[in-house]
């Protein structure tokens, strides 16, 4: 063969995705057919992308193809190495499941929206998502990065007839372009210092750059990529954009797109710059800890399922950042084995999050499809009316709450091991900083646990809280199939970490020069066998033995086998759907405990004053959380920008001569500055 085989798959993927973008637009008058074709082509493109990524991850050499010359920036090329393959692969896997899911989900929009357009946009989204990790040139990267932002903006604004959606889309566009601005700055700095815009050139020159330049590039890139990843304090767009977008798009955005921010951070810091001083690691670690904690805290108090999931994405990005930060930190300390462990933990968590968050957003979409709401206070009892969906969401909930059955636990456990490894190092700052980050991770885990217990319990158990929830029916089988694929991924990634870690080692070994050992018999021993170990197959095996035992042993002890069905005891009154605990009530104690951070404002009871006090019918209780970041960062910044813009209006005279003079003066200034610099 002239070309290595993954390149064929990449070409097939790109061409089918392009066809999937154009096809539905050509079939504009037959949206249903266009949608079907778009979904099928998206599935084909995704599986091609997954195949190419898997090929490289299983040991094929990196693919490197020059595309076209771009004067004066050199040759634009694509490169599929192991790191890119992880992100391409998760895009492919998630894209496939989402495409299957979308076949049924589009009926939610039939008659209201043009579903063919939706499928075309999703195809474009999958295409740009796949191209971002492939780009091997600054200009090519910024091009696909901005295309990805553009397509996702269009998807967030898909239901633009709602005022709220428009606001969310604009907010998202502003934040993402703010981030892109920082990226431009980082890339320009790198390009001028390295003398090339090619990533290969950067890889060669990056490690030799002066320390201050490296740090400047790193911080600018961290802000730029962090805005896309939803790292605090640049997270504000996530809880707005995710609920506004169609559910399967939210799954792609949360599962794949925000990961591209993390991809950028890893690519820039480990690969292109070749590591840096220890404070880079501490910075990433700190940002990760804050994002994880605050994300989990907001998720606990949220009653809108999709917003809750969005906050949980911030939390999970934070957890991945803990791994990335620890890896950077260990790398600076020359603890290569621990750096590999931390990086593998972060990558594992990134992949896992794509699966369980994709599953949860698809589940939320199924709930929305069946009940037309994702407000937990209007849901309930769905486990009886939508049993299959409820089962898959339970799988997602177990995974996301890091219960020791599924994939979420494995990557969290690896992250714990990476952070606690700091204790086994001689260096004192390491021994303090990393375990403290582990404290943050533990608290995050505790809070996320509550958030998802609440979401599942209020959303799916007991009685329905509205007529829509009471009358919900199961969703179409294609939607269930999409969720089944993702749930299967959660199960497989949870059961067989001993197969996944060697694959991720292929990413870690060129970046940090070490690998994570895997013990015999599917045993995970990331440090040493007498330090820590985990065997997921044994946990499954023992539970599969113990659950039936717990059933049989009481029978042998003479347990009764009869069951009586009776109404729930309601303290003397008859229980109704309105006497059940609400999501807001469930989270009330934690809202009170963390009141300083959450800043809840409660609006008390509004009563009809004409009724006597014993018959208060019209009772309302509103809790509004004020975001710390919005109050102390976004609001002052917005005020400052508006004020500055207002001041600028003073120099706008409206006369063309005046503007010509401005242009002339600016030109002179630029020339003078350039002369001074040159």
């Amino acid at each position, binding site marked *: 063969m002239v070309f290595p085989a993954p390149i064929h798959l990449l070409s097939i993927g790109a061409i089918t995705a392009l066809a999937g973008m154009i096809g539905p637009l050509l079939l504009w008058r037959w949206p249903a057919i266009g949608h079907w074709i778009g979904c099928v082509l998206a599935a084909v493109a995704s599986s091609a992308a997954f195949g190419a990524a898997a090929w490289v991850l299983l040991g094929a050499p990196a693919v490197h193809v020059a595309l076209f010359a771009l004067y004066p920036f050199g040759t634009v090329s694509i490169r599929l190495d192991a790191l890119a393959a992880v992100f391409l692969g998760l895009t492919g896997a998630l894209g496939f499941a989402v495409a299957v899911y979308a076949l049924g989900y589009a009926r939610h929009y039939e008659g209201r929206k043009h579903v063919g357009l939706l499928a075309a946009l999703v195809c474009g989204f999958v295409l740009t998502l796949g191209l971002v990790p492939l780009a091997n040139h600054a200009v090519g990267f910024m091009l696909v990065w901005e295309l990805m932002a553009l397509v996702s903006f269009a998807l967030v604004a898909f239901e633009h007839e709602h005022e709220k959606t428009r606001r969310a889309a604009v907010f998202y566009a502003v934040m993402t372009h703010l981030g892109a601005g920082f990226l431009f700055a980082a890339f320009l700095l790198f390009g001028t210092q390295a003398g090339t815009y090619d990533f290969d050139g950067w890889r060669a020159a990056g490690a030799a750059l002066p320390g201050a330049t490296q740090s400047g590039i790193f911080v600018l890139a961290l802000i730029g990529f962090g805005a896309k990843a939803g790292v605090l304090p640049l997270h504000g767009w996530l809880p707005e954009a995710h609920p506004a977008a169609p559910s399967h798009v939210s799954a792609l955005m949360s599962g794949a797109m925000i990961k591209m921010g993390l991809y950028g951070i890893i690519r820039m810091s480990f690969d292109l710059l070749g590591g840096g001083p220890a404070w880079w690691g501490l910075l990433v670690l700190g940002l990760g800890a804050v994002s994880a904690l605050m994300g989990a805290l907001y998720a606990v108090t949220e009653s809108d399922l999709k917003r809750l999931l969005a906050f949980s994405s911030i939390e999970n990005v934070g957890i991945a950042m803990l791994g990335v930060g620890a890896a950077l930190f260990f790398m600076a300390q020359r603890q290569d084995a621990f750096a590999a462990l931390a990086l593998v933990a972060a990558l594992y968590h990134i992949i896992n999050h794509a699966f369980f968050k994709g599953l949860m957003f698809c589940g939320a979409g199924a709930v929305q499809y069946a009940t037309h709401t994702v407000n937990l206070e209007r849901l309930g009892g769905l486990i009886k009316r939508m049993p299959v969906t409820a089962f898959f969401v339970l799988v997602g909930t177990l995974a996301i709450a890091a219960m020791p059955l599924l994939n979420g636990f494995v990557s969290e*456990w690896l992250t714990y091991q990476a952070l606690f490894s700091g204790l086994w190092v001689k260096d004192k700052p390491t021994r303090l900083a990393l375990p403290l980050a582990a404290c943050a991770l533990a608290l995050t*885990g505790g809070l996320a646990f509550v958030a998802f217990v609440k979401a599942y319990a209020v959303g799916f158990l007991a009685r329905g809280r509205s007529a829509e929830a009471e009358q919900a029916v199961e969703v179409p089988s294609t939607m269930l199939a999409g969720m089944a694929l993702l749930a299967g991924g959660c199960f497989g990634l949870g059961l067989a970490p001993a197969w996944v870690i060697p694959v991720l080692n292929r990413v870690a070994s060129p970046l940090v020069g070490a690998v994570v050992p895997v013990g015999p018999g599917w045993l995970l021993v990331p440090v040493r066998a007498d330090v*820590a170990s*985990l065997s997921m197959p044994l946990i499954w095996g023992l539970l599969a033995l*113990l659950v039936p035992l717990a059933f049989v042993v009481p029978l042998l*002890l003479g*347990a009764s086998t009869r069951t009586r069905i009776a109404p729930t005891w309601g303290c003397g009154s008859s229980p109704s759907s309105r006497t059940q605990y609400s999501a807001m009530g*469930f989270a009330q104690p934690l809202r009170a405990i963390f009141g300083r951070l959450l800043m809840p404002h409660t609006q008390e009871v509004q009563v009809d004053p004409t009724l006597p006090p014993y018959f208060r019918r019209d009772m309302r209780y509103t809790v509004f959380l004020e975001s710390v970041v919005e109050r102390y960062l976004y609001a002052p910044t917005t005020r400052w920008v508006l004020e500055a813009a207002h001041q600028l209006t003073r120099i706008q005279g409206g006369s063309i001569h005046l503007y010509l003079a401005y242009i002339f003066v600016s030109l002179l200034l630029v020339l003078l500055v350039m002369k001074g610099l040159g």
Partner: protein
Amino acid sequence: MNADTMAVWLPAAAQAVLVIALAPLLNGVIRRLKARLQGRRGAGILQPYFELAKYLRKDAVVSADASWLFTATPYVVFAAVALAALLVPSIYLGSHLGFVGDLVVLVYLLGLARFFTLLAAMDTGSSFTAMGSSREATLSALAEPALLLGLVMAALPAGSLQLATATSHTLAQGFTLSPVKALSLAALVVIVIVETGRVPVDNPATHLELTMIHEGLVLEHAGPGLALMTWAAAVKQLLLITVIIDLFVPWGAATSLTLPALGLALGVYLGKLLIVAIAIGLVESCIAKMRLFQVPDLIGGSFVFSVLALFSFTLLG
């Protein structure tokens, strides 16, 4: 199955059965002691077993609103706690199943049991059990990380997250009262009180809505389901106490599989448990229950102890 595998699995299984069988007895002893301290005669120490037998013989009553999750919960909860019991050695330290999972796994297995307990409590639609669920969730969000940290700090001097490694390190070192040990012991004692639902955090003798957490949580279970939930809670309590014994005072436990050694170890273990029971009985009789919103301060105290242990390990060690 060859002899080596048997030598690892059989003692572990036997010890798990021992802990599961002894768990209600500890509650019986504590109740008897409390009754005596309060001037009552109290029931016999075997009373918890009679209660379990009674629950087992009763029919299950399931809420009309509940789903399969509610019915499955007691079995899953008991299995998760029993799996955790397999990981904790009590009288014989020579073999262990530590390779299945370390201290982190142990904490998360108890978390799995709690996950299903909380969901089942919400599944009946009763606001009473849901209140217990909300409170337990709130405390667990804080207590679970504190427990994890306390355990890690206690195992710190051994340089390991494995319970067995930490135990043998303590045995080899002999009795030393290092700051790390003292601080992590303080952290763990506080958190075990929270986790096992004892005074001053929760009152195991009541399910009044003003005071209860755990007892309210299992209120809707009946018959064999209630028996398993109650039993699992007792096993969890004994398990956490056993972990503390393993980490701080493992002396007396058998290191060889001979009958005299095992008999002695069992006697020493029971003696240690009696001391713990007396301590719990005294504390519960002397201290009033805290208000719910004071408990986070208590857990915060445990956090502080753990972080102090970390600092002392880093700066002194």
